[in-house]
């Protein structure tokens, strides 16, 4: 267990190192250097002297190696510099917006997990009936719907036609309804598809039939012999969708003008606000990797077989 933890933490550090090198050089290779962007934001003319001034100010006049060392030293202290647009520290800017987005992410994730687990177990219990077929078809349909279509349709009907919910912004609980539905509908549908496969696999296992042959109570049978073996695969699926959910959230935030991280990042990206983009990337990578790591630890705790599977691929 400790070895695994240490290995994964080392892996995270190594990954961040690679990522930082990649981003550092990408910013320098791409057309439009940081100095230009700053000058454009300040509204000054792009003259020779000002560029040199900013270069010394940013420390960009030394060698690339020195620049990287200095830059990465600051990155380790979570000092991502100041935003070109607002001249405020990047970390503060990001942190002030993160709560709005996190609420959206957690709400939609929780709703879609609960709903999809219930629906997929329901479908598996009624296997071979029309209900199961319809659940399958609807989930395929919903999971291939693009988020913006769902979002636009919801806005069209609920906000414009029926005037039930506000069109955009945030504040009251009414504002949460449409974004959360938009995010969780396709997510829930794809969960249902994958979960149903997982449950059918578990039902096929001999130990489930053996448990039935033992005459175990319904509650014990379904919780210990059906749900417990599913949890491992469920969590893996959820973890793999957790990352892409953030992409979905960005689209949703732009649709509903949600004042969260997503719309801020899109804004920063279009304005070429390099410190914000870099800070966001590194923090996001660290955050997601830590989440994956925690899920892996949890899986190990739940499923004792996992420790055995480690050495499967060998040289």
């Amino acid at each position, binding site marked *: 267990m400790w070895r695994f933890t240490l290995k994964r933490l080392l*892996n995270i550090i*190594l*990954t*961040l190192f*690679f*990522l930082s090198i*990649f981003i550092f050089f*990408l*910013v320098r290779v*791409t*057309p*439009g250097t940081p100095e230009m962007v700053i000058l454009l934001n300040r509204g000054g003319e792009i003259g020779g002297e000002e560029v040199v001034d900013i270069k010394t100010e940013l420390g960009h006049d030394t060698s690339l190696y020195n620049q990287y060392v200095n830059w990465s030293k600051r990155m380790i202290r979570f000092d991502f510099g100041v935003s070109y647009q607002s001249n405020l520290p990047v970390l503060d800017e990001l942190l002030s917006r993160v709560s709005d987005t996190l609420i959206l992410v957690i709400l939609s994730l929780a709703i879609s997990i609960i709903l999809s687990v219930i629906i997929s177990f329901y479908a598996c219990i009624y296997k071979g009936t029309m209900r199961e077929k319809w659940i399958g078809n609807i989930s*395929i*349909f919903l999971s*291939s*719907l*693009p*988020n*913006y*279509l769902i979002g*636009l*349709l919801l*806005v*069209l009907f609920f906000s*414009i036609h029926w005037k039930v919910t506000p069109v955009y912004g945030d504040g009251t609980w009414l504002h949460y309804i449409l974004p959360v539905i938009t995010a969780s509908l396709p997510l829930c549908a794809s969960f249902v598809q994958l979960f149903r496969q997982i449950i059918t696999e578990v039902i096929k296992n001999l130990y489930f039939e053996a448990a039935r042959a033992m005459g175990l109570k319904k509650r014990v049978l379904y919780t210990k012999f059906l749900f417990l073996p599913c949890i491992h695969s469920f969590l893996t699926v959820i973890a793999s969708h957790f*990352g*892409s959910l*953030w*992409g*979905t959230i*960005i*689209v949703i935030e*732009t*649709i509903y003008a949600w004042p969260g991280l997503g719309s801020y*990042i*899109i804004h*920063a*990206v*279009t304005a*070429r606000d*390099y410190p914000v*983009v870099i800070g*966001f*990337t590194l923090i*996001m*990578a660290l955050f*997601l*990797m830590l989440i*994956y790591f925690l899920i892996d630890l949890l899986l190990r705790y739940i499923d004792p077989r996992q420790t055995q599977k480690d050495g499967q*691929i*060998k*040289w």
Partner: protein
Amino acid sequence: MVRRIACFFPIICLGFLVFTIIMGILFTPYDPYEVNTQEELTPPSSEHWFGTDHLGRDVLTRIVFGASYTLLFPAIVLLLSSLLGVVIGLISTIGRKVDLLTTAIMDSFSSIPSFLVAIIFAGLLGPGMVSTLFAILVSWWVHYARIVRNTSMIIRNQPFILSAQLSGTFGVKLIRKHIFPNALPIVRELIFLDMGTIILMISSLSFLGLGAQPPIPDWGGMILDGKSYIQIAPWVALIPSVFITIFVMLFYFMGRRVQ
């Protein structure tokens, strides 16, 4: 018999749609780029089947002309990124140290979800189709590289590889002759399954204003244009998104068939 027809249904649909798109390009009376201020946001009629957008351009014509941007472009991007992924995945099977390096790189790329990578990349390179191409390329090759690497590892541990090694096949030749052909079918399946996802991703990027820039009649961009007029002219945004959905679903079903 019914099942057999159902099997070809997505392919037939796809063929029909591609055919109509080509016919549309040949026979449309309108220009997808020409601004017509007299016919702004007219609702669907016999003259303009899908109405016109805020600049008075025929939506149907723009959809027909935008098809190549929304369908052909993702296919090219997907092929390129799968090629990159396969090459890197195969390189990682050469040796232990190379494998460690490549897996570390793969990990660092897959630590951020691909759509975020695409957004960040498009942001760093500036919006446009070229940056979309690079963005998807950078974010999507990891999937292929990882799958190719894992399957080749499994193949590598199979007895026939040992017998090939015993009969004197090593290095690049071993990979080319024995590992690559066995890993190929999985990649082929994956390409079909991923096509819909890539279309969705690219259109989402355009919807965020990071993809193809106006006046290119890219469907995602059309949705972005129409979003502002959703209250008075919903067709401008809805029709392209419905088209995207149809194509994504067709590709999805085709992917399932191939599987």
